[in-house]
């Protein structure tokens, strides 16, 4: 029964793999629910700060932040890339990276230089290997990153923008459409997009304490941080749902594989029994 043993051990190993993928699927499912909750919990802040920014755009402030001024000729581009820390989440990261590479090669053609800040170790190893200019990174952020883990990477880029080292800042992350669909998204963070509704009812301005510059700068910094934070939370929700789907299909594949192997095993077993029987019968006939 040499064949039988081989197939049986193969079935056992596939079964073991299936147990692991099942467990990962369930873990991802429960984590996804939590990540989605956190994602929605972060929304009010983003909405409120956007309101405040919109008000600010209507106010006639004597100070205009450099973040709000678009620069006509761009030479260098900054980019914050959000990826996952772990793999085994289907094509989530590779879809985003493919989209990014397409964008980067476009920029290369326009001979724009690129500076990257990277969040998440998958993008760190990918873009590190490409030899691009990585100026800051944060990896191993875990499932519940606080905003303090992201401050560093964001601040690097904001300072570079303020100093004129980069002329535009983008955020690349996955957008959570629903638990089956995630979509790579590359958005402009800086310069801030002016809101469309510019009609003014009356002429007013805030009272700023201590002064306009400090207050507005801090507000805009918080705004960008909240956008990046939102992106990271969304990416984590994407990661968990993508992993859940990937692990589900892996478990399903394992099931079909086991069925096939079982069939092969049964056939082999039957063949060997038939052979033995015919040997005995023909042996008896010969006597």
């Amino acid at each position: 029964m040499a064949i039988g043993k081989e197939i049986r051990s193969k079935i056992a190993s596939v079964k073991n793999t299936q147990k692991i993928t099942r467990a990962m699927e369930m873990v991802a499912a429960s984590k996804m629910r939590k990540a989605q909750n956190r994602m929605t919990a972060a929304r009010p802040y983003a909405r409120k700060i956007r309101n405040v920014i919109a008000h600010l755009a209507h106010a006639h402030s004597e100070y205009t932040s450099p973040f709000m001024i678009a620069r006509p000729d761009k030479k260098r581009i900054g980019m914050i890339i959000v990826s996952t820390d772990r793999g085994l989440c289907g094509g989530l990261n590779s879809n985003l990276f493919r989209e990014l590479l397409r964008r980067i090669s476009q920029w290369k053609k326009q001979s724009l230089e690129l500076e990257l800040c990277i969040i998440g170790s998958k993008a760190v190893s990918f873009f590190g290997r490409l030899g691009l200019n990585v100026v800051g990174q944060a990896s191993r952020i875990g499932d519940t990153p606080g905003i303090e883990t992201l401050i560093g990477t964001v601040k690097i880029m904001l300072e570079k923008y303020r100093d004129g080292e980069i002329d535009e800042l983008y955020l690349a992350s996955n957008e959570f459409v629903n638990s089956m669909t995630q979509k790579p998204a590359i958005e402009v963070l800086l310069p801030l997009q002016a809101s469309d509704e510019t009609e003014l009812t009356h002429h007013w301005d805030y009272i700023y304490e201590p002064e306009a510059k400090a207050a507005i700068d801090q507000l805009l910094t918080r705004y960008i941080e909240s956008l990046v934070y939102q992106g990271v939370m969304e990416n984590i929700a994407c990661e968990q749902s993508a992993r859940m789907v990937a692990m589900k299909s892996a478990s399903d594949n394992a099931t079909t594989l086991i069925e096939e192997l079982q069939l092969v095993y049964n056939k082999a077993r039957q063949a060997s029994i038939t052979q033995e029987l015919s040997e005995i019968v023909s042996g008896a006939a010969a006597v």
Partner: protein
Amino acid sequence: MTMTIHVDIVSAEKEIFSGLAEMVFAPAIMGEVGIAPHHTPLLTPLSPGEVRLKLPGGKEEAFYISGGMLEVQPHVVTILSDTAMRAEDLDEAAVLKAKEEADRQLHDRTADFEYAKVLAEQSELAAQLQSIQRLRKRAGRS
């Protein structure tokens, strides 16, 4: 009926309070401010401290915030609370950390690269092994 003003207190991680209040006290960076309905528009950073709300009906509610921003519009007060302790030097430390990580990665790249190479070789070997097994099986069956 007394006049009220809508107050929203949010942090990046969750919504803390949303509702009406008669009066809001907040620790602005230049000193505590009290805001009544129809206050003139105001924008200011907040220092760590206590935000107190006088709710309709005389009750008071207090929240601790570790800094943030305060925006006042005539009918709405928005408090954007920070979740983390923020200070210029702390932010600076975070920047340094992010930069260091990037540097370390740059110098460490050989190790990572080797790992990726080994991984690629391994997957190739696995694929070869699989096709050999498949061939063998087919040969066994026919």
